């Protein structure tokens, strides 16, 4: 939340009116789910709302200035969302404390990005961009870390920005689609995926846990509580995991794999 706040954002009735219409229409359509093989893909109203918003931006109804105005509004909306998550966590607090070890340790699961994405990036021939791209999910604190260490115009900086842009535009839709699908095709428990939904971005968490709730409505309270607690944990510890574990690991793995690849190339 920046301190230099712009006043009078509430006066933009066209912007708020269009959002209200979008919300009412997308919620009236409701959740749409379909099977892909043994898994289920959930399309939630919030995903349609995102796409309608994006389309609105390209119509004359929304100007660039309104798009800029909408940005600080998201912080307030996420504030309401976190108030709700707080009151869901409260009554489940004994349960959350019991699951504390799992909540803490799954934060290290973020290293999955390094092991899964880094080898593929090197196979595809990407160079040092790889380090910025694969050391984390590239949310704001991670972008800051890379910019600080390598500079804005470095290959690492370009890499982290590329994943940041992908995540900003496509992250919520992507996670919303894969979370329900993965939870229904893998034998893992929905509660494990609930913890995994707390990535450190409000909209990604909402989309990922939202699909889980749609797939397992009976577990709603637990899913929200675990996803919310995990998201708060990611917000507070994510940067340190990146700084002290993920980034050094990414550097080392990059050096080993890229040396091996170029070594083979020379022979």
């Amino acid at each position, binding site marked *: 939340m920046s301190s230099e706040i712009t*006043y009078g*954002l509430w006066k933009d009735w066209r912007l708020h009116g269009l*959002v*209200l219409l979008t*919300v009412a229409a*997308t*919620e*009236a359509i409701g959740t749409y789910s379909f099977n892909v093989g043994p898994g289920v893909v959930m399309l939630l*109203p919030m995903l349609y*709302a*995102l796409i309608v*918003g*994006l389309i*609105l*931006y*390209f119509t004359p109804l929304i100007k660039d200035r309104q*798009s800029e105005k909408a940005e600080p509004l*998201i912080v*307030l*909306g996420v*504030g*309401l*969302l976190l*108030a*709700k*998550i*707080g*009151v869901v*966590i*409260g009554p489940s*607090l*004994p349960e959350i404390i019991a699951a504390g070890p*799992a*909540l803490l*340790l799954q934060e290290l*699961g973020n*290293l*999955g990005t390094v*092991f899964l*994405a880094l080898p*593929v990036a090197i196979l*595809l021939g*990407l160079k040092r961009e790889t380090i910025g791209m694969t050391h*984390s*999910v590239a949310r704001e604190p991670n972008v800051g870390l890379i910019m600080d260490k390598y500079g804005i115009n470095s290959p690492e900086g370009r890499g982290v920005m*590329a*994943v940041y842009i992908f995540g900003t*535009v496509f992250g*919520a839709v992507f996670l919303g689609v*894969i979370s329900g699908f993965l939870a229904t095709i893998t034998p*893992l*428990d929905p509660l494990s*995926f609930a913890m995994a939904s707390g990535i450190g971005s409000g*909209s990604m968490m*909402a989309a*990922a846990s*939202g699909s889980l*709730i749609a797939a397992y409505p009976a577990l709603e309270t637990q899913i929200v509580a675990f996803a919310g607690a995990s998201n*708060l944990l990611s*917000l507070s510890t994510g940067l340190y995991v990146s700084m002290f574990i993920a980034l050094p690991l990414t550097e080392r793995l990059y050096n080993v794999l890229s040396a091996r690849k170029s070594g083979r190339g020379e022979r």
Partner: protein
Amino acid sequence: MLLRNIQEWTLLLLIFGVASLAANWFGYDIMPISAVPGMLVLIAVALLGLILQQIIPVHFPSVAYIAIIGVLISMPWMPGSEKIVEWTSQVELLALTTPILAYAGIVIGRSWTDFMKLGWKTIIVASLVMIGTFLGSALIAELVLRLQGII
């Protein structure tokens, strides 16, 4: 300054509240009248968190204050928490997220040109980044929850 911020936040939270009540009604068949008390509680919690962030001189995000206040007022040990839980249960979580993503869609329109410039290699790697963290966390959570006998 702070008073002016509070006025601005209140009005914007109310606008968000109206959109969420509409989502709650159209999507989950909860009449706005029965969701209003819960919505007002959530707005008050969010407002209090925003205010605390401004007056406490420690660098700590407002969302963290908000979540902590939410947890505190709904803990089983807190007197009156049943009412808070009962009222706020009338506001669906997903009804709060739809307006957020509608505004977010309008905002990310400006990033669209940058997005379209990303090459196919970036798209593949970025997708694997998302899947990697999601599956990685789920696997560890599964392992520990099983070891603890919770699932």
